[in-house]
């Protein structure tokens, strides 16, 4: 379509940066840090260019022609023994309205987290190399359209994360890192199984007319492409699609993280350094919901329809359970971690609505949660850098000592509890509007509105405990924000504000894709009900 392979550039740029960092001498710390900031900065610029060239009217989802910035090459093609046929993997990248917002989010958050990594003090070289590798993995997940490629990036991101938590983390870093690793690996195994099952069930017709098994996500979305006997084929009366759906869902749910698979998150957050927490909450959690929207929904539309109630139920549990758990926390970071659990529940609730308002709300909420939670973790980072404690009860009255910082804190907190005028409100409102419009999950929606109240409860309580009241004399020397911290917080705040006042920037971007998706889900429903065994 166009000449410049933007997606490959934006994906592999960090890898290039990693090589540069590896070539730099260990002692040149400034250069190493600068490289990772500059590389992620270029990524933001690239993302901006992609945005400016993005065509809002194309839908994507199940129509390969309406994906944008597509790059498709043969990558692996091996003729093997007869029953397996040709193993064919494409290097296939492209974005639509579902992945575009998340691509921009990833670029942005990576950049901010790179700035935030400035204070990492040991093994800088390794840290930044790992960090850039992680960024490649994250971007790759959002742009790849071939299941195999997707899986490679998915796993690619896991390893650096393990080391980033396990080496540069807090006191219980080994425990947290192992827990994170095993949990995610556990999910990946499910993902892999389903992936192979899908591969062996669907074929794609090549240019020369032969049919080969395919990893192409878009081909997998078309029920016509399945073979009669494939184990996950809808045409096979004894298919295992239901089991596969659950397995894949669990694989992604661990990443979201969905109750009851969420316990790795508080541990990982508490131990991870600030920048990694920002990445973890800002981008990694979105991969779970993105995966469900990108794979589970269009590939298994009929089972999605059956399970909508359950998805919504778990969304509601996440919302309320997360909020209640957050309320009882004494560690600032843990509190924010549980608030993430709660906020990701909104995404699930919105997805379950299966209508435009709800899914738009869900995707928008992914973006907003990315920016808002990133800001919250940065805020905790600021205070932790200065005071070296995160206990909520250790503070008090910081508003007197650090007024500007407290201003940002209030901004972020109110964004998190969905104050109108800030972006979180729009997405939450749309999630509720959408979910409430779906008759099946109406009651669940009403119950989960309680989350709004609980969210306000624990956020304001935290605000009061840490920032209001009398200043704890222990902290009367803490300085206010410095330039670097402004550089991280101001862009996020501006984005949150702009998207709150004029959300169409983001909603228009995803609108045609979301509409395509909803139409597709509704249509395939009729297709599946027409299959007679």
């Amino acid at each position, binding site marked *: 379509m166009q000449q410049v392979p933007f997606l490959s550039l934006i994906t592999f740029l960090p890898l290039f940066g990693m090589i540069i960092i590896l070539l730099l001498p260990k002692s040149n710390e400034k250069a190493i840090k600068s490289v990772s900031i500059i590389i992620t900065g270029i990524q933001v610029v690239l993302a901006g260019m992609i945005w400016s060239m993005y065509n809002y009217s194309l839908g994507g989802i199940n129509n390969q022609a309406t994906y944008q910035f597509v790059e498709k090459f043969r990558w692996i093609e091996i003729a093997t023994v007869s029953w397996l046929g040709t193993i064919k993997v494409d290097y296939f990248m492209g974005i639509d309205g579902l992945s575009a917002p998340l691509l921009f989010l990833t670029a942005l958050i990576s950049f901010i987290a790179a700035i935030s990594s400035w204070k990492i003090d040991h093994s800088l070289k390794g840290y930044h190399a790992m960090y850039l590798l992680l960024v490649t993995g994250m971007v790759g997940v959002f742009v790849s359209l071939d299941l195999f490629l997707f899986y490679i990036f998915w796993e690619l991101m896991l390893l650096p994360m393990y080391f980033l938590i396990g080496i540069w983390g807090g006191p219980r870093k080994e425990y947290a890192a192992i827990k994170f690793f095993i949990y995610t690996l556990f999910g990946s195994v499910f993902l892999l199984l389903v992936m192979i099952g899908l591969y062996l069930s669907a074929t794609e017709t090549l240019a020369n007319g032969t049919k080969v098994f395919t990893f192409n996500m878009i081909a997998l979305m078309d029920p016509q492409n399945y073979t009669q006997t494939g184990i996950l084929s809808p045409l096979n009366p004894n298919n295992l699609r239901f089991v596969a759906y659950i397995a894949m869902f669990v694989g992604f749910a661990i990443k979201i993280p969905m109750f009851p698979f969420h316990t790795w998150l508080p541990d990982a957050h508490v131990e991870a350094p600030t920048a990694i927490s920002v990445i973890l909450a800002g981008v990694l959690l979105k991969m779970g919901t993105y995966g469900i929207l990108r794979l589970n929904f269009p590939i298994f539309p009929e089972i999605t329809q059956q399970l909508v109630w359950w998805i919504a139920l778990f969304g509601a549990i996440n919302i309320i359970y997360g909020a209640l758990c957050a309320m009882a926390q004494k560690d600032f970071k843990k509190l924010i971690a549980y608030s993430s659990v709660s906020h990701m529940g909104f995404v699930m609730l919105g997805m379950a609505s299966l209508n435009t308002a709800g899914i738009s709300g869900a995707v928008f909420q992914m973006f907003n949660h990315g920016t808002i939670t990133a800001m919250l973790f940065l805020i905790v980072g600021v205070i932790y850098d200065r005071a070296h404690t995160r206990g909520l009860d250790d503070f008090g009255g910081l508003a007197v000592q650090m007024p500007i910082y407290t201003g940002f804190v209030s901004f972020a907190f109110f964004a998190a509890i969905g104050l109108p005028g800030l972006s979180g409100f729009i997405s939450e409102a749309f999630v509720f509007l959408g979910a409430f419009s779906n008759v099946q999950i109406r009651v669940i*929606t009403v119950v989960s509105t309680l989350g709004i109240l609980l969210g306000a409860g624990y956020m304001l309580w935290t605000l009061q405990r840490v920032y209001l009241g009398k200043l704890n004399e222990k902290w009367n020397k803490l300085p206010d924000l410095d330039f670097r911290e402004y550089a991280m917080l101001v862009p996020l705040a501006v984005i949150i504000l702009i998207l709150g006042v004029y959300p169409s920037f983001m909603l228009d971007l995803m609108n045609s894709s979301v509409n395509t998706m909803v139409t597709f889900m509704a249509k395939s429903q009729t297709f599946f009900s027409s299959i007679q065994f």
Partner: protein
Amino acid sequence: MNGSNLITLSLFILFAPLVGFWFTLILGKKVEKSYLIEIVISTLVLLTTIYVTFTKLFYFPDTKFVSEFTWINLGEMPLLGKVTVELGMMIDNITALMLFVVALISSLVHYYSIEYMKGDKRYNRYFAFLGIFTFSMMGIVLTHNILMMYIFWELVGLSSYLLIGFWFEKDSASDASKKAFLVNRIGDLGMFAGILLIFVNYHTFTFDKIFMAIGNGVLPFNSEFWLTIVGILLFCGAIGKSAQFPLHVWLPDAMEGPTPVSALIHAATMVAAGVYLVARIFPMMTGDALLFVAVIGALSAFIPATIALTQTDIKKVLAYSTISQLGYMIMALGVGSFAFGFFHLVTHAFFKAGLFLGAGSVIHAMHHEQDIMKMGGLRKKLPVTYYTFLIFCLAISGVPLTSGFLTKDGILAGTFAFGLLTGNSIFAITGFFVAMLTAFYMFRILILTFHGKPQDEHKYEHAHESPFLMIAPLVLLAILSIFIFYTANPFNADSGWVLSNWIKTPASVVPEHARYSFMVPEKMQEAAVKTTEHITHSEVYTEALHHAHIPAVLLSLVLAGLGILLAFAFYQWKKIDVDALTLKVKPLYTFSLNKWYFDEFYHKTFVSGLLGISNILAWFDNYVVDGIVNGAASVTRMLSRFSGVFDNYVVDGAVNLTATFSGLIGLAFRKLQTGKVQAYVVLVVFSLVLLLLFFVKI
């Protein structure tokens, strides 16, 4: 006269305070006098508003100005149809009146605060917060759709949070601000649920479109029951914001904020937003929903009035009286007396703001002493404050020649008429009883504060009249509390311009059999007289109201007089011993003094319950959910240890056994244990050989 510029000017009215907020906030620390930006903007807004309001009311009393633009376009939604979300403004008569009230009191409070807040270390920030409040309040008033109202509704909550917690170093202030926000959120949840219901059924948020749809017979889920539910849910927002029973507990605590703020937000404007909301959605309220509204209003009028009798903090008494008066308005709307309910909102805004500003003047003079038991005799020291305060007290008690008389009397007549028509006289009884209580406790604080002997000589000596900027707003508000601004006839407001031209009951769109019976206009009447088509009420109702008027006037006069008399008897002439009486009705007294134990009850049940649940869940999360995970991990570890043992003894034993038979393989396996790469290579090749032997036909 062209009305099209009104919308443009309203845009200025809406956004100028926001600009002021940003500039004052950002310049706050660096520029010493940045608060002047806010002052200037607020004055400009007031002038513009006066122009807009009076142009609208005098030249276009029957026109509705609407302007909107598309904010979010979701396009053709596959399951729901075309959905766009519009933002827009609407100026009708009640908007114009409300604009005037907000702008006037807001700028008066700005001027007043210049003196009152002098010396505060966050002086500029205070004015910035006033700016964002004015912005949000104007937003509520000007909007033409329910979603935008909700948006500004929350923003008002935010500014209220910021201003109540302005002196956040005090724990009580930060507690109060949090409580205010959360309690408001409870109400907002209901409102939000109502909005969801509206969206699902009408796919729009615009009031006019919703009303039109209902008028065309489109009901939520095709049932009047759900229409009632929608009405009640939306009203929940008003319960929270207007501090109605059972969510009234935040307002007295909100008095922790600076006194001018209490005057602006917690007496005149923000809390009145609830009443404004009910007025806005009045056309879609069914009879049942209105009855619910009326009951809540009556309870809110009665309970706080009884609490106000025993409180000794001057601001708390005023706060409870505010709740009680808001209850009046809500009750008036609930019994269908739309015009008087809204009218009372306007007059109450002026005299209640005046009362708070007067109390502020007293507190200022007494060096932040708020306990009326420690005041007394201030009449001579603060003459202007005293006389204006007296006028406000007369107004709120409903003494003739004041604005309060006009409206309160109208409301009482409305409840009376309601009783006559439906046989349900509980609202009338409540109304009259509360009128007496109001007169009593208002004069109680007046007497204890200004009359008698000073209780605290030291503070009394230092007290002095407040400076001009604080006195002037008081005088202005006192003047506005005189009847002449609203009607020429001091005993009946019906013929006055406010009621006859400006405030008109909107036409109900609810199906006829779901309304109050008296709100169904007779068919004949409607057909015969074209001009009355927008009047909701039937002829019978007008008749009943007419009949109710005279008895209501007389009765309310008697009761107000009785209340005032009792107050004098208790506190001025000391004819009746207060302490002895207190002892006699000890249980009732403590009950009232402790505010009916609402706070304790809520704290014991909801707050502690919630915290308890959250602690249990956190424990559950930590030990059960995570325990399962860790348990699974340790089980796996145990299994692996077991399999290690198994490997060592059983498998290895078998290997060694094999080795005795087949020395070569045994050798290979034993080499394996050395962990050397080369051994692995041998093994790999060996396995390869086996595989090849298996697959390749040689």
